[in-house]
């Protein structure tokens, strides 16, 4: 009799874990599937929750019920150890072939559940979507708010290492910020004389590239010496007799401290300004502090400067802007593989 009773017991006792999503709905899932997910597994082991409907494990907010289903399917497939790599790969490829919005939700949920393999999978898929698209297209696809103001985009960069490129870039930004302010002032004044407008908004052939495009500039001319040599032909007017200093000097013997500031007169890699004759007598300025100081208040100090110096500075910055926007390095890149 006892034996008979025991024979009635089911051979397979599946245990389930109960999960609750942020909206309150509860579902149960096989234990081994749920354990595949580190966050759930930890909850089960540490707090013993999930064993019944009343003690369901609350999932992070970013895990929506619809997405949870997909994630559990993923876990269910992959936790089976017997599958070959090829099988898994095929499954993954199919898994990510969903709408962008769903993919984003999956990525977000996987991230909050710390499900590393799924995070990688979805991130890779999203990255593939982003690759090679223009900023507008990316905004379109992912519904990104354009919440960086013009001013923010022109924030000066931190230049602890005293990179001459960054110094020039910050100066370029200071100038653009000034222009922006001018334009805004004019808008406030209303439509004043059109003459005024055209004067201030003189068309600089400069597009608003990203601050961090510095990186794309830094080695933009690093690939070919020839390209650089010909590019530098006109611009490299560095005098041989001028001593190379880590910071350049004030050019016209103007007063020290506040009026003097570093030119980008250091590297052969940025082309140099022609220095006026009487420069060699200027004193050497304490480099980094002054540069840092000037970078911060660049806009203000600029206005106090000698007009000749201003012109020099303007020319240097404009040239820098031109080089930044030059498509020469990219064109060279295109040419090379085509040979």
């Amino acid at each position, binding site marked *: 009799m006892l034996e008979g009773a025991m024979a009635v017991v089911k051979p397979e006792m599946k245990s389930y874990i109960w999960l609750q999503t942020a909206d*309150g709905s509860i579902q149960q899932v096989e234990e081994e599937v749920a354990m595949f997910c580190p966050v759930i597994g930890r909850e089960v082991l540490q707090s013993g929750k999930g064993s019944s409907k009343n003690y369901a494990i609350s999932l992070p907010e*970013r895990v929506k019920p619809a997405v949870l289903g997909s994630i559990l399917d993923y876990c269910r497939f992959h936790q089976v150890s017997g599958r070959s790599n090829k099988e898994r790969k095929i499954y993954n490829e199919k898994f990510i072939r969903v709408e*962008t*919005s769903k993919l*984003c*939700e999956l*990525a*977000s949920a996987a*991230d909050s559940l710390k499900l590393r393999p799924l*995070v*990688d999978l979805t*991130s*890779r898929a*999203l*990255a593939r979507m*982003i*690759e090679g698209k223009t*900023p507008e297209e*990316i*905004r379109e*696809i*992912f*519904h*990104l*708010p*354009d*919440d*960086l103001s013009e001013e*923010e*985009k022109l924030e000066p960069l*931190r230049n*602890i*290492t*005293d*990179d001459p*490129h960054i110094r020039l870039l910050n100066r370029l930004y200071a100038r653009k910020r000034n222009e922006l302010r001018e334009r805004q002032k004019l808008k406030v004044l209303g439509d004043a004389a059109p003459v005024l407008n055209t004067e201030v908004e003189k068309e600089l052939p400069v597009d608003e590239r*990203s*601050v*961090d*495009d*510095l*990186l*794309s500039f*830094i*080695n933009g001319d*690093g*690939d*070919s*010496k*020839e390209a650089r*040599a010909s590019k*530098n*032909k*006109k611009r*490299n007017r560095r005098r041989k007799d001028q001593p190379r200093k880590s910071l350049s000097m004030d050019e016209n013997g103007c007063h020290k401290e506040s009026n003097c500031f570093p030119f980008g007169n250091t590297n*052969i*890699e940025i082309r140099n300004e022609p220095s006026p004759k009487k420069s060699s007598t200027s004193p050497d300025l304490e480099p980094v502090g002054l540069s840092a100081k000037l970078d911060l208040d660049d806009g203000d100090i600029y206005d106090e400067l000698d007009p000749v110096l201003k012109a020099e500075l303007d020319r240097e910055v404009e040239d820098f802007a031109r080089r930044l926007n030059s498509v020469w390095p990219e064109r060279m890149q295109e040419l*090379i*593989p085509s*040979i």
Partner: protein
Amino acid sequence: MGLSFSFLASNAADPPPPEPGLGNLPESCVASVMVHLDPTQICRLAMLSRDFNRASSADFVWESKLPLNYGDVIQRVFEKDDVLRKGNFCKKEIYSRLCRPNSFDGGAKKVWLDKTTGKTCTLISSNGLAITGIDDRRYWNRIPTEESRFQSIAYLQQTWWFEVDGEIEFPFPVGSYSLFFRLQLGRTHKRFGRRGCNTEHVHGWDKKPVQFQLSTTDGQQATKQCYLKEHGKWICYHAGDFVVKNSSNCKSMGVKFSMTQIDCTHTKGGLCVDSVLIYPSEYRERLLHF
């Protein structure tokens, strides 16, 4: 429950929830996506929105772009009192700094990371090479020029024994590298803003090929012979390849290389020696066309 009640009450007033998209993804997610993009793209994305901007500065994103042994590279390249060694920099700044050509070994060498791939490129100037007879002005001259990253090249007038040796000890990140000699037959000059090349003194290179040799501290070797051709252009002659494997016991790889033409039955001359390049092997095709 209070929750559902308030939900109903506020439903009418609230605008419809924003469509789900990357715009709503938390920074860590966006950063995870950026790990799979290359640095230039990451920088472009940084300007799209505030979240992207913050995500693009995430340390783990840039850590994945830096070579694994970037700490060793920094130690080797930068002086003890350099800011980079002392300061606490975020990985993005470290990457940015390493992408600039950084001089080391007294200015005789330069190294940088290629900005897109993060691979290490090294350059050894003619000043850093051991050139037989360099001090004898009958044979060799150092000429300042714009066409070199080191602003000067070594020009050979003529000699019987041509030998250029060099070596470098550097913590190359794991990967395979190709070594090139950047040479030009003929001496350039600039007149009226135009570049011209004087090939009068170029002789002897067509008689016998030059020999390139390369060897590393872990026993790799390569030799190659080729004729120098094409006057008037800078050409990167491929000397050999070597592979750096991951090994915990030795941080640095030493590479010795040489270029010789020591057949003393004929003189050779008219050659400009600029520098030796060590680039990742993937760039080989790119360089050979320059």
